C-alpha cells in the first residue's frame, strides 16, 4: 500500500519537536523538578545559567519549568479550538455543499459575512460576550476559525460531488448516505486533515494572543501568552522572560505548519 508517502527529513524533525512538547504535556515532572507557580524570592530575575537554563522571572520562578508546564495550558486548548472549528465548519460547509442551491446560497452568505471579520476580532468579541477563562478562549478561537473551515470544506465537497466516480457510484445504486460515507469522506479526509493541522498552528498563536491580552487563564497560570505579557514589563532588563516563551510558541507553530505542508503536498504518483 502506498497511501502515505515516506516521511521527509522536515516531517521527521517536526514530529520530533511535537513529540517533545507532547511529553511536556503528559509528564511535565519528568522534564523538570521545580514548581511552575511558586518561586524562590531571592533568585528573582536571574539570567540564564546552568541552574536555570532559561533564567528566572520576577518572583524567582524557573522560566523553563513554566514553559514546560505551559505546554499543558496552550496546546490542548488549541486542539480543542481547532476541533471546534473543524467540526462546526465541516457541518456547515458539508450542509451547504449537499443542500439545495437556496440553502447553499444562504449558508454561503453567512460564511462570507463571518470571513469578512478579522479572526482575532471575532474571537475577542466571542470571549468578551461569553466571559474570560481558558475554556472560553479556546471555544472563541474555534468559532472564529469556523467560517474559513466551512468555506474550504464546502468547495471541496462540491468539487468532489462533480467527479465522475461519484456519479458512477450513484448509478451503481449507492444511496446518499453511502455516497458521503464511502466516497466523499475518504476523499475529503486528507485535505481536511492537512488544513486542520495548519489551523492548529494558527490557533496556538491566537490563544497566546488572547492570553497576552489577559482574556485567557488568570495568573499565576504558566500560559505562554500570559508569560510574554508579564515579561513585557522587564523587557529592558530580563529579555529571557519574553524571548523563551515566544520561541517555544514559534517552535510549535512552525513545526505544525511544516507538518501540514508535508501532508498536503501533491503526490507524484497520482494523476
Amino acid at each position, binding site marked *: 500500500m502506498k497511501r502515505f508517502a515516506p516521511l521527509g527529513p522536515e516531517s521527521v524533525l517536526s514530529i520530533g519537536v511535537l513529540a517533545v512538547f507532547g511529553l511536556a504535556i503528559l509528564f511535565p515532572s519528568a522534564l523538570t523538578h521545580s514548581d511552575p507557580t511558586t518561586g524562590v524570592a531571592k533568585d528573582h530575575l536571574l539570567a540564564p545559567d546552568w541552574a536555570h537554563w532559561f533564567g528566572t522571572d520576577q518572583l524567582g520562578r524557573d522560566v523553563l519549568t513554566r514553559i514546560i508546564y505551559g505546554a499543558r495550558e496552550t496546546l490542548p486548548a488549541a486542539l480543542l479550538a481547532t476541533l471546534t472549528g473543524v467540526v462546526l465548519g465541516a457541518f456547515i460547509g458539508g450542509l451547504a455543499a449537499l443542500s439545495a442551491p437556496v440553502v447553499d446560497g444562504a449558508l454561503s452568505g453567512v460564511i462570507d459575512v463571518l470571513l469578512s471579520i478579522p479572526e482575532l476580532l471575532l474571537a475577542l468579541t466571542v470571549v468578551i460576550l461569553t466571559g474570560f477563562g481558558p475554556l472560553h478562549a479556546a471555544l472563541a478561537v474555534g468559532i472564529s476559525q469556523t467560517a474559513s473551515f466551512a468555506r474550504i470544506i464546502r468547495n471541496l465537497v462540491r468539487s468532489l460531488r462533480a467527479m465522475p466516480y461519484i456519479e458512477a457510484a450513484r448509478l451503481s445504486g449507492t*444511496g446518499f448516505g453511502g455516497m458521503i460515507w464511502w466516497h466523499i469522506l475518504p476523499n475529503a479526509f486528507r485535505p481536511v486533515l492537512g488544513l486542520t493541522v495548519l489551523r492548529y498552528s494558527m490557533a496556538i498563536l491566537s490563544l497566546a494572543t488572547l492570553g497576552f491580552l489577559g482574556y485567557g487563564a488568570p495568573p499565576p497560570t504558566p500560559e505562554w501568552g500570559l508569560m510574554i505579557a508579564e515579561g513585557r514589563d522587564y523587557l529592558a532588563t530580563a529579555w529571557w522572560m519574553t524571548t523563551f516563551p515566544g520561541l517555544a510558541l514559534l517552535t510549535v507553530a512552525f513545526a505544525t505548519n511544516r507538518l501540514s505542508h508535508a501532508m498536503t503536498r501533491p503526490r507524484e504518483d497520482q494523476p
Partner: protein
Amino acid sequence: MNTQHPVLDISHLGISYDGKPAVENISLQTFPGRTMALIGESGSGKSTIAKAIIQLLPPSARLTHGTITLNGISLTDATPRGLNTIRGRQIGFIPQDPSSSLDPRLPVGRQIEEVLRLHTSQSRAERRGHVLHLLEHVGFSEPERRFSQFPHELSGGMKQRVLIAIAVALAPALLIADEPTSALDVTIQSQILDLLDRLREESGSSVLMITHDLAVARDRAHDMIVLQHGRIAEQNTTRSLFESPRSSYTRKLLADSPAFHSRPATPARFVSGMRPAIQVKDLTVAYGSQTAVSHLSFDVQPGTTHGIIGESGSGKTTLLRCLMGLISPQSGSVHVNGKDIFSETSAERRQRLRNMQLVYQNPWSSLDPRLTIRRIIEEPLRNYFPEGQAWRQTRLHELLERVHLPLHLLERYPSEISGGQCQRVALARALAAQPDILVLDEFVSALDVTVQARILELLSELQKELDLTFVFVSHDLAVVRQIADTLSIIRYGKQEEYGDAEQIFRKPASPYTQTLLQTIPGQKQNGNQPQKFLGS
C-alpha cells in the same frame, strides 16, 4: 537514400529519467521538404525525444549518450543563450494542446509578434504587417480582427492555426509537431494537417511529426519511425512500412488500428417485431434558450450496438445523460424496455438504473482513488444484491475473469494500474449489476491503439456471451465502424443520419457524413489521391 544534407541529425541518443532509461540508441535524420513521423504509444519515449531536440527536458532527465545536431550545430553542447536563438528561429514547435498553449490574457496577434520581437530587428509596424500576413497565410479570413482577439474567442482549430503561425513565423528549418491534431475534431484535423503540408511544401522546412495515430502518419509522412519502449522498432519509408512491415510490433500496430480494416460484415442482427431495448422519440433538450439536442429519434434492438457519432459540441454528452434519465428533456420521450423513463416511480428508476449501466470516458476519474479495485467492483454487488460475503466473493472472481483481469489486482488502487486495466475495472463494475444495456461514453478514446483493440474485442465478446445491448458514443468513426450495427450521426444537436451502420459507411446520404468519412485519416493512397471537398 538522400543526397541532401540532413536538417536534423540525431545519433545514438540515450536519455534516462532518474537512472531508468527512457529512450535508447535512437538515430534519425530529417531532410528539407520531407515529413518524418515518429510513431509510438504512450510511454514509448516519443515526447522525450521531442523535448531533447528543443533541449527542454525536465530536470530529472539525463542525456546518457549521443548527439543532436541541427544544420551542423550541436544542440547538446549549445549554451542556454545559444539555444534561445535557435528555438523559434530555426526550430518551430507546434504543441499538442492548443487550449493550454496560448496565454489567455494576451491577444493572439501579440503572441505571434513575440517571436518576431525576440528574433528580428523589425519595427513595430513591420511586425504588425508580418503578423497579419502570417494570419492570412495560416488561413484566417479577417486577419485584422483576429489580431486583437483573445484565445477564448477562438475555437480549438483556430487556436492551433495561431500556434502554427507562431511556429512558422520565421520559416524555421525544422518544424516539430507534437501530436498537433490529437485534441481536435476529425474534420478540423484534416484541415490543420493540410495546412501543415502546404506550409512545408512552400517553405521547404523539414517536419518531424510526433503522433500515436498511424493513419495520420500514413497520410502525411514520407518516412516513419516506429518506437516501442524507447527503442526504434522499425524505420522505413511510409510506403514500404505499410506494404511490407518488417517488425512484428509494426504488424501488430497495423492490425490493431481501426482505420485500416473495417469489421467483417456481421450477419444482420435485426429481429423484426421485437420490442426495441431503447426507443428515443423526437427528443429535444435545451439549456435555457440554447438547444443542445433537437428532435432526435432512434431505436436500439436488443443485443445490438447503436453508435452515436458527433464532434465536440454536437450534443452527444447531453443526449447520453438524457438517455440515462439524469436530465429531463423539453419534449419527446425515451422508452427503455417499453417503459417511459421520465414517468417512472423511484423503485422503477432504481431497477432501470441497475439494468442500464453507464461507463465513462476517463479511465481514472471514474474510479474512486481511495478505494481498492475490490471495493469498487463490490459496490454494485452490495447495493443491488442481498446475498452475503461468500456469494460476492464468487461473483467478484467471475467478473474479473469476464474482463480478463488477474485476481492479484483486487487489492490495488486505481492509480496503481494502467488505463486499459482501469477501463476493464469500469466494465466489471458495470457488469456487476447484471445489466442488459451498457451506455459507453467515448469508452476507448483515452487508450493506446493496441489496448483499444483488446478492449473492443472484449466488448464484442461480452455482447455475444451476455446478450448485451450497447449504446456506443464516440467521435472516432473508425472505432464506431468496428462495433456498431446501427448508427446516428449528430451535429449541432441535430440528427444528420440514422440507419444501418454498413449502409451509412458505404453510401452516406448527408453531405456532412460524406465529409466526415472523407476526412478519416488513413485512406489517402500515398498522398496522391485528389481530395474532394463537400459540405462545409
